[in-house]
């Protein structure tokens, strides 16, 4: 579990003469309400695209750093207005360079400003790891890439591990598994992702574990080209044994044609269903990222109201692949809910007629980021970006759910 660092400690960091804090410290400080002022000094378009959001997003002031170069006094005065009486200010930019410069100017002007080391790049790379449950026979961890709203799930039982929807930085999982003394056995992608780069194929090569994907998703929906990476094929009804856990593959097409759920059954009777981009806590996965929204929207209906109702027990915990807002987490910061609660609370599921449902879906499709086509190429081995290019592809928050 993340250790909460009260906002007061951020202030204390400054008092002890530190000029920067790290993303994990800021994240911890923002797990409860605070009086921090976030000063974001990036360009307008970068700020519009994504910013620091947590369960308790503090007041945020946006003032691009070149104002501090061009009109330093005016810019500092604008910050001063909001940050009198020693109110702590955390300054953030893209990589931590310009914000360091601005924080120093603010400190010279007598304000309590501290730089966020590494800026939004580090924030974007921050993974929050927390336990879902730790039983004698099995343990489950949520690995949440906070800035992107991407969630992955690690199952461990009797020394064996499976990762569902492993996110880009595979080494974070290896570290967790090492701490847990578990050996990686299965790498399971619920589908070929369009919003983020999977570390599944790389981790498979690195560890010798098998990487699994449904073959329908091993064809690029726009290029119509087959995957050029090693993978084992998933199919409906397939079963895996992971220590004391049973994993069943349920084909749940709609978001993609090869989207599957992994239904994990524990010996104590609990069930956990990794839904990827099928069901979310709020909303569900959009059907148009393959360019076939009108054809695939009815398939989403059949999956949710047919397959899910039939095959996933009502008491199963739904473990989704995304969230749109940190408000979707429970009090423990976990993005999980029992299916029966989801039927009740997720208002996008309150449909009884397929036609109405399809209408609703097609009228609530958000903008599709153009890089989603390329990310899918990367995920099936058709493209191999440099580190910088990969960073740019993954910039900002996921847009995999319906809007509003």
């Amino acid at each position, binding site marked *: 579990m993340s250790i909460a660092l009260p906002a007061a400690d951020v202030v204390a960091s400054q008092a002890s003469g530190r000029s920067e804090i790290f993303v994990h410290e800021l994240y911890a400080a923002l797990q409860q309400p605070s009086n921090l002022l976030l000063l974001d000094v990036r360009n307008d378009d970068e700020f519009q695209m994504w910013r620091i959001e947590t369960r308790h997003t503090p007041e945020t002031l946006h003032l691009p750093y070149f104002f501090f170069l061009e009109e330093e006094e005016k810019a500092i005065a604008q910050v001063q207005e909001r940050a009198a009486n020693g109110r702590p200010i955390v300054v953030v930019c893209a990589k931590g*360079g310009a914000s360091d410069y601005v924080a120093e100017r603010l400190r010279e002007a007598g304000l309590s400003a501290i730089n966020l080391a590494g800026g939004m790049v580090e924030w974007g790379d921050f993974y929050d790891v927390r336990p879902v449950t730790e039983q004698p026979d099995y343990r489950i961890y949520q690995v949440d890439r906070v800035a992107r709203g991407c969630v992955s799930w690690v199952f461990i039982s009797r020394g064996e591990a499976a990762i569902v929807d492993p996110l880009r930085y595979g080494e974070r999982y290896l570290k967790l598994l090492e701490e847990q003394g578990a050996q990686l056995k299965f790498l399971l992608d619920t589908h070929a992702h369009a919003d983020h780069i999977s570390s599944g194929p790389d981790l498979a090569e690195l560890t010798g574990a098998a990487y699994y994907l449904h073959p329908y998703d091993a064809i690029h929906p726009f290029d119509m080209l087959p995957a050029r990476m090693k993978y084992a094929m998933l199919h409906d009804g397939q079963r895996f044994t992971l220590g004391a856990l049973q994993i069943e593959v349920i084909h749940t097409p709609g978001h993609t044609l090869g989207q599957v759920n992994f239904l994990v059954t524990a010996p104590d009777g609990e069930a956990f269903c990794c839904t990827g981009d099928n069901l979310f806590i709020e909303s569900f996965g959009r059907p148009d990222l393959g360019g076939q929204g009108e054809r695939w929207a009815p398939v989403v209906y059949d999956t949710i109201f047919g397959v899910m109702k039939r095959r996933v027990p009502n008491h199963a915990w739904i473990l989704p692949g995304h969230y749109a807002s940190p408000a979707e987490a429970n009090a423990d910061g976990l993005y999980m809910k029992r299916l029966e609660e989801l039927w009740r609370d997720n208002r996008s599921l309150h449909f009884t007629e397929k036609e109405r449902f399809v209408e609703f879906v097609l009228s609530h499709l958000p903008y599709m980021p153009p890089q989603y086509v390329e990310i899918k190429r990367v995920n099936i081995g058709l493209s191999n970006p440099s580190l910088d290019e990969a960073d740019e592809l993954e910039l900002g928050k996921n847009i995999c759910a319906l809007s509003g």
Partner: protein
Amino acid sequence: MTIDVATIQVHQELDVRGLNCPMPLVKARQAILKLDVGQVLKVISTDRGSVKDFQGWAKAANNVALLAQSEEAAPDGKTLYLHYVQRTK
């Protein structure tokens, strides 16, 4: 940007290779103040972020115009980001 960089008359070059944000802009700002109004500074940077930064700066500052930006491969294979900035006031 529609201007062909080959037609731009450059009065001074500023080499900020290896420097990261905010230094390319800080140095460009100092350099441009040493030019006469109308003269052009060519900035050579290895910082990819400088592309957007120079655009933002040109909008925010009241004494410069960004005439053009281009990319070029350096002998070592790195990409160079070139910015042509004119002092206007």
